[in-house]
């Protein structure tokens, strides 16, 4: 499946009513072709809907005008030269539908009608391009603003101690969602403006803590990341079974993982070592060997990298 770009999403999200030209120049069936020429020239457009008693009855374009000019029929009324019962689009249709219409019909514009078939606008290829570009530009600005706000949050909010805590529930044996908590923490930190080196260390430490909860606990646990000026503290807490011998658990390669988990590439006995390499401070406790609490501090100023 190819990657779906934001632009492709937008053509489904955006409605025709949002991108169409609303101020529609129209003519009556009685308007002469000579008058039409003036109207097209004046408004710098290449076609107009024809309306009679408020109802859409046809559409006439510069092509029809050229034909009339060639045939010397410039005094004929628009009603004789127009295309009757033109193909219309509805305001609530997605832009992708309009794009399909432009591909399947060879028209330069479509009249747009509302639910009651009243003419409310006109849509050209140019309108679609402009509408998409505008929307993308707005979104780009919004993202910039989000980013700016997020990375300046500690300057904007005055308190004696400001911190943001992100909480993530981790379900035991849930391999399908393994890595999601770390992935979310990673993007949150990037948005908060943490350096790639810091983000990498936090990502590794939280991933290993997350996998430990998924692989070894009875009922899962919680991972939180607390962001404060100068430091990030990661806490991973579960409800058991706990680690009987922490010193042994910290030995590289020591693992209690069953064979089937090792075959998947987990349980190498390197998780805690990896966490320690990324941490400036690490505290691992398992009181009465019943539950486990891991606290990892990563300093933001040191930028010392993995050990």
């Amino acid at each position, binding site marked *: 499946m190819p990657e779906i770009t934001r632009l492709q999403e937008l053509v489904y999200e955006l409605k025709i009513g949002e991108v169409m030209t609303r101020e529609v120049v129209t003519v009556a069936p009685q308007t002469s072709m000579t008058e039409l020429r003036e109207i097209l020239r004046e408004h710098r457009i290449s076609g107009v809907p024809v309306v009679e008693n408020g109802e859409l009855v046809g559409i006439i374009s510069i092509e029809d005008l050229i034909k009339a000019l060639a045939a010397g029929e410039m005094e004929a009324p628009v009603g004789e030269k127009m295309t009757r019962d033109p193909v219309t689009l509805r305001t609530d249709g997605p832009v992708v539908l309009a794009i399909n219409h432009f591909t399947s019909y060879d028209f330069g514009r479509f009249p747009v009608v509302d639910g009651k078939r009243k003419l409310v606008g006109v849509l050209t290829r140019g309108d679609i391009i402009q509408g998409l570009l505008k929307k993308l530009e707005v979104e780009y600005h919004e993202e910039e603003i989000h980013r700016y706000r997020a990375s300046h949050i500690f300057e904007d909010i005055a308190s004696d101690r400001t911190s943001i805590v992100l909480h993530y529930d981790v379900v035991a044996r849930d*391999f399908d969602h*393994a*890595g999601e908590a770390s992935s979310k923490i990673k993007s949150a930190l990037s948005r908060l403006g943490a350096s790639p080196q810091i983000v990498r260390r936090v990502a590794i430490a939280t991933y290993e803590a997350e996998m430990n909860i998924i692989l070894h606990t009875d009922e899962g646990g919680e991972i939180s990341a607390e962001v404060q000026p100068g430091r990030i503290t990661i806490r991973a807490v579960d409800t058991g079974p706990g680690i009987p011998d922490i010193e042994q658990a910290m030995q590289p390669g020591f693992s209690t993982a069953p064979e089937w988990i090792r075959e998947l590439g987990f349980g190498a006995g390197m998780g805690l070592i990896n966490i320690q390499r990324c941490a400036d401070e690490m505290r691992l406790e398992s009181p009465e060997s019943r539950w486990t609490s891991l606290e990892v501090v990563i300093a933001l100023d040191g930028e010392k990298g993995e050990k």
Partner: protein
Amino acid sequence: MTLEELGRKLSLEVRTATGKLGTEVTGGYAADLLSCAMAKARAGNVWVTLQSHPNVVAVASLLNLAGVIVTEGMIPDAATLEKAEEEGIPILTTELTTFTVVGRLFELGVPGVE
């Protein structure tokens, strides 16, 4: 060298994220233990492994790897491919063994990262 060029030269089959093959590969890493990859692989590296379950994608994504080469004819399951597509991680597959793939990558000038 980009992942696309490597894929062509080693006749790898691109399974996901065809739009992300233009990344310049900064080096290579090979192992089947996820924690080892987590510890040693660097951003922009290509990871050669015969693991093919969804967590491979999680690791690759967390480390911003250029892509993953899955060896020995292992075909990642649908969940893995879907996740890789979502995260924009190219997965390339081959019948070759990890040893051969790494050897060929080395010949092509992709360095190991120590």
